[in-house]
Every structure is written in C-alpha cells, then in structure tokens.
C-alpha cells in the first residue's frame, strides 16, 4: 500500500480554509495512486484553540464540513484531526479515518498533556478506549500525539492485531541544543522505531509545520518498517509531503523473525496489573 504523509500548516480556527488544504492534498494523493493520506492532529482547526474549542467543534454525524471530507475519501482513505463534539456536549481532540466515503473509525485522544507549555486538559474531555479497525490494507490503530508517549497505548492496539499504527501529532519545537534535531524530535523518531520493531508493525507518524502564538511545529513526519528501520522522513519545520510504500512482505518477515506478539502473555499481564492496581488502593 501507498501512504501520503501530509505535513501541512493549518490555519488556527479557520476550518473552511483548512478543509481546502485537505481537499487539495487529497486530490494530489488520488493522482499519485495512494491508498491512504494522513493529516496531523487537529488538522482541520489548528492546535492552540483555547476558548475556540467550543466554537470549532463538529459532530461527525451532522457536520457539513466533515461530510465534504468524508465524500472526498471515495478513492483514497483519509485520516484527519478535528474537535469532535461528542455525547453530552463534551469536546474531544479526535482523529477520524474515512474510507470509501464513510467514517470507518474515530479515535478520541486519551492522554491530554496538561503541563509545561500544554493545556489540553482544560479544554478537552479525555477519550477512554484504544481500538483497532479493519481497513482495506489491514488492521489499523490511530493514536494522537501524547497517546503515543504512553507505551501501553501502542501495546494494547498491537494485542488486537494492529499491523499499521497511524500517529497524528502536533509536536512543537522546544529547546534547541547544539547540533541535532530540536529536542523532542529525536525522541519521536526513536520511539517510532522502538514501537515498530518491538510490536512488529508499521508506524506512520504525521506532524504539522508552521507556527501559532510563538510556537513552531517541528515537522519531521516519518514512517518506520516493522523491522524498526526508518523508511522515510519529511522536512523539519516546513510544510512537506512524503509518500511511502508499506508492502506486506516486511511485516511477514518481521513477525516470522521475531514472534513477539505470538508469545505475549495477556493473562499474566492482566493478573499482574490487577494485583498492582489493587495494591495501590490497599490501606496501609
């Protein structure tokens, strides 16, 4: 299969303008014969929304804007990020996968960073599940940014048979030390390689470019093979577009060479987790 990593620079709080960028990128991806195009976290709205969260929120069932995106997915599947207005008027940082003109999967970000420069917990409700879905190219899981930093997220998805992990992020430049990638970006790529190799799956991680409120998003989207080998990397900082091929061969080879998933002990994990959790609440 062929995937396009659409490292775009969305406008803050202007979903209509961002939709245009999406539709243009989708048309290009179609022409390139791609199976899937992946946009970054909150690609339809931008990131630092603050009180705009409520005003930018969309209901997947009724939003005309999401309808248009859904329709555009007739020939190439699309993963895009937006603010979802969910049940009970809760706002989620969400990513949807549209396949053949239909909503195939919706992930609500579980881990909302609320520390340092981040303040998501103030504005968003937390998702509470990690689920995979069956896509035309294989079993797929979606994570959003901070979700990926919690190793258990990818691990859980892998236990459900995930072959492709799609990570949509908005990772900013933090400290720029001498020589090398902006601090943080090296960690992303390292994490992607470790997860791919030890869960024996493809990892496609799409970050955004551009700036908001003095932040600069780092770009550097990448894809990793199930061997842990980096397949491709987009430019740092600037908008970019990267096409990668994810053939089935390397997945089979990696899983044959390292049958780590086959040998997982889910019962043991459940048992030990149960023990650890209950001991936390034991009276001293």
């Amino acid at each position, binding site marked *: 299969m062929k995937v396009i990593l659409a490292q775009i620079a969305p*406008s*803050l*709080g*202007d979903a209509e303008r961002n939709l245009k960028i999406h539709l243009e990128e989708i048309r290009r991806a179609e022409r390139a014969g791609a199976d899937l195009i992946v946009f970054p976290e909150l690609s339809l709205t931008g990131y*630092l*929304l*603050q*009180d*705009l969260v409520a005003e930018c929120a969309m209901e997947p069932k009724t939003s005309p804007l999401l309808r248009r995106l859904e329709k555009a997915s007739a020939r190439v599947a699309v993963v895009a990020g937006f603010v979802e207005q969910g049940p009970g008027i809760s706002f989620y940082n969400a990513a949807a996968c549209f396949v053949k003109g239909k909503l195939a999967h919706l992930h609500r970000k579980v881990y909302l960073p609320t520390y340092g420069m981040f303040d998501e917990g103030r504005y968003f409700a937390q998702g509470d599940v990690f689920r995979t879905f069956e896509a035309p190219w294989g079993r797929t899981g979606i994570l959003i940014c901070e979700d990926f930093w919690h190793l258990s997220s990818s691990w859980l998805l892998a236990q459900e048979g995930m072959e492709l992990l799609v990570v949509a992020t908005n990772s900013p*430049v933090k*400290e*720029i*030390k*001498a*020589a*090398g990638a*902006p601090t943080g970006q090296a960690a992303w790529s390292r994490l992607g390689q470790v997860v791919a190799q030890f869960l024996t799956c493809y990892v496609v991680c799409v970050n955004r470019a*551009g*700036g*908001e*409120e*003095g932040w*600069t998003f780092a770009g550097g989207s990448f894809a990793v093979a199930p061997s842990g080998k980096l397949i491709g990397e987009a430019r*740092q*900082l*600037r908008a970019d577009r990267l096409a990668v091929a994810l053939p089935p061969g390397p997945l089979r080879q990696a899983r044959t060479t390292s049958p780590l998933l086959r040998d997982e002990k889910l019962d043991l994990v459940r048992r030990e987790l149960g023990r650890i959790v209950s001991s936390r609440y034991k009276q001293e």
Partner: protein
Amino acid sequence: MALRRERSDLAIDPKLVESVLTGFIGEETRRVGRRRVVVGLSGGIDSAVAASLARRALGARGVVAILMPYRLSHPSSMKDARALARRLSIRCEEHDITAAIDGYFAGDPKAGRVRRGNKMARERMSILYDRSVVHEALVLGTSNKTELLLGYGTIHGDMASSINPLGDLYKTQIFELARHLRIPAAIQRKVPTADLWPDQTDEKDLGMTYVDLDQVLHRLIDERWTRAETIRGGWLAAMVDRVLARVRGSQFKRRVPLVAKVSARTVGIDFRYPRDWGT
C-alpha cells in the same frame, strides 16, 4: 573562595534557531496582512541580530531600521547602526529624541537618570509604533531572555513590541547567533549597554557578568534547579538570591495589566482566545 562549577550547556544550533526565528517573523508578519517590520537599531547586538533575522525573513524591503539617538548617546552607536543598515541594504530613518526628552524634563531638572532613561525608552517605543503605521509594519521586539527574566528593561518602553524573535534566547546565546549571522565585529565586540547615560554598562547595572547570569538563570528557570541545588552546584548564595529576587520582583513587567473580575467572562482571566485566531 574557590568554587567548582559545572557549566550548564547553553550552546545552541544557530542554524536551526535561525530557521525557527525567520519562520516566526515571516509567518507572524504575513498572517496579519503586513509585509514589513520596523526595528529600532541601537548599534548594539540584540537589535542587530533582530534586524538581520528580519532581513532574512522578509527581504531588504521588509525591514525599516529606525535610529533614535539622544544627545548623550555614544557616538559609535549611531555609526555602527548606520553601517549595519547599509550592509543589510535596508531602509534607515533617524529621529533624534533629544528635543522631546529635554523638553519634557525642562521643568523638572532634578529628575534622576532612571526616570530619564525610562522616558527615553518610552519615547523610542512611541516613535516605533508611529512609524509602524506609516510603513504598514509590525514593531519587532529586541528584548532577550536574560533581560526579560531579570526585568532589565522599561515596561511599555523597550519591552514593548508586536513580535519578539529574541525573547527566548539568553544574552550569551544571542552572541552565538550573532557570530553565525556574521554581525559586524564592531557590534559583536561592544560591551553591552542600554546607552541611556554615559559609561552605563549592563553588567555594571546588573552586578554580574552575562556569562554568570545566564548560567544561574538557565539552572533555575530552564532546568528547574532549586535554590539549594544551584548553590550546591557552585554558585554563591548571594548571587542566586539576587537573581531570584530580580526575577520575582519583575514579574509584573512580563504580564498584561490585571483586570478586576466583576463579570462572567473577563479579559485576561477566563476569556481566552489565541492571538493568531483565524490566521
């Protein structure tokens, strides 16, 4: 007393920093429909670095240098500023502030140098904002992180700007960036000064060298060392306490004015929108 200090790593990747900062200047200027910035060139290193970054981000026609000498300004200040503007091929305007400052203080000859210095900084700010209208430009800030954290600047004076590319770089990091940007040696070698009165230097005003200040600030602020850890790291308690007191004492300068809350949604408290809204 001999102290063994482990140096904090303040080295930057100047090329990457340049790339982030030129991206920032270009994007933030264009997103509000402008193509230009005005920058007050003092002949010092901060404004030289800011102007060079803006020149790279917006092109020669995207930067207007504004020189605002006072009669007591050091003669080299304007000379170096003019030379830099020529070298960058950017437009350069001069607005002498002597008449405005001396006119204001004519009836108050006992005014001390701090009041006079603050008045000069605000006079310059006022000119920059006026010229920004004429040139349909944004005012480019030049305050660095060391100054911002220590409050070593005039609130609503040199601390005022529309966008500031330098505010997250310590002074010693500005020097490193200046070397990368090939700022003229005359400017790089100059002893840092606000040039508000004769023989003023930053390090005399602050009572510590920038090298030491940046080390202590980096430990306390960026690396979140406690006071005790910083002192154990080899810094004199008196130095650490002086820095901490300055940072705490100048917090008001780094915030917008407080608004008293008497309604459901209050500007600055729970009315929170991004400035880059819809851009």
